């Protein structure tokens, strides 16, 4: 595998970075970076770390890393994760260093502990913390329960003072959304699988309305809604497909994610697993209870519509 970390890779402009990934030969990993400076979203770091866990530790090479570039990567724990020496020692955090370094979460207990530790690290007020811990909990739990990933979920987050937002990246190298959804619903492509996974009430565990005793198929819809209502960016990359929820001027919720303002691509390098990135603006964070009211309306409507679509029509002859 070969990864080039560019000058800039955030959710809005992540497509070229993903397109340039060489995911062949998963035993080896070669990381190169832009020589002058790099500025990348945590989802990129989580992806690099997740791929690093798949590679043979002796076959991981980090070349051409300039000091300005590696400082951030070191602070986020990338080299420690990859088992590579960077030669840089970070003795104290920067004053604005509100971040969560790369963390591997493999089970429910580790997730609960991570969420407990996460909020103090980000210095968040309770109102700001609520959607963030919600998003992390639901996304990581999805990985633990559905991804069938040996390495669990790789998570990291960063606060950006200039834009006053938290960026979160969660990556697994499990079976991907298509295989999970296909257990209950037909999805011929990864994009169709993403569309179904973001639809309220659709879960890979059953095609029964209301889900199973443990899964309802609501988690990703809730998260997409939190992003949409707060005008934040949200992305899912799995298989060869990338779905990006773009900033919206309307709060109107749709059960079908393809009706939301979005971009999509289906010709990316085949990634076995799932990559989820989200930005949460702390300026714009709406009251969580208000978001839940919107969700309640559209969720019930969506279930009703699906139920109605299954009605048999009387035959008049």
């Amino acid at each position: 595998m070969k990864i080039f970390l560019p000058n800039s890779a955030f959710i809005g402009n992540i497509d070229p970075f993903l397109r340039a990934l060489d995911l062949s030969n998963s035993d080896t990993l070669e990381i190169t970076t832009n020589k002058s400076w790099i500025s990348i979203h945590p989802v990129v770091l989580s992806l690099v770390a997740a791929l690093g866990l798949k590679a043979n530790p002796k076959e991981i090479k980090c070349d051409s890393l300039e000091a300005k570039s590696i400082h951030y990567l070191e602070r986020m724990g990338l080299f420690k994760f990859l088992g590579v020496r960077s030669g840089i020692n970070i003795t104290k955090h920067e004053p604005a260093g509100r971040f969560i370094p790369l963390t591997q979460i493999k089970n429910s207990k580790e997730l609960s502990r991570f969420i407990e530790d996460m909020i103090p690290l980000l210095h968040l007020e309770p109102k700001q913390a609520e959607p963030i811990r919600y998003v992390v909990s639901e996304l990581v739990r999805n990985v633990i329960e559905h991804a069938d990933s040996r390495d669990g979920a790789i998570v990291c987050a960063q606060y950006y003072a200039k834009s006053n937002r938290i960026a979160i990246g969660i990556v697994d190298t499990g079976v991907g959304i298509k295989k999970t959804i296909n257990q209950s619903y037909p999805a011929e492509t990864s994009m169709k699988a993403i569309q179904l996974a973001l639809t309220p009430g659709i879960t890979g565990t059953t095609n029964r309305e209301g889900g199973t005793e443990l899964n309802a198929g609501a988690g990703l819809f809730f998260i997409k809604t939190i992003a949409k209502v707060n005008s934040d960016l949200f992305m899912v990359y799995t298989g060869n497909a990338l779905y990006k929820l773009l900033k919206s001027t309307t709060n109107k919720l749709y059960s079908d994610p393809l009706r939301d303002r979005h971009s999509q691509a289906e010709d990316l390098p085949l990634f076995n697993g799932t990559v989820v990135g989200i930005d949460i603006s702390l300026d714009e964070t709406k009251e969580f209870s208000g978001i839940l009211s919107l969700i309640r309306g559209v969720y019930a409507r969506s279930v009703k519509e699906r139920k109605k679509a299954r009605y048999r029509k009387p035959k008049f002859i």
Partner: protein
Amino acid sequence: MITIKLFGQTGSFAENKDIARDLRIKEIIPALDKGEDIVLDFTNVEAATQSFIHALISDLIRKYGYEILDKISFKNCNETIQKIIMIVTDYMQES
């Protein structure tokens, strides 16, 4: 009437579905089967995920019918927890 306090097991953020399932199977269902009314006491629980609430109550509605909600009370829920409970009870009754 049996009161089940959640905070001791869930902490302030109720998100662990394993705990929800255990509460349902080990405490709620046995009490309902004895004909008891249940109070789920959310005192000091600041937030809950939809997954947690689903794992806690959805199977009760499926198993006993929506009338079971007459036998369950949700105590000291803040506004967001109330809304999540309403979302789950709505879609379970619609399905």
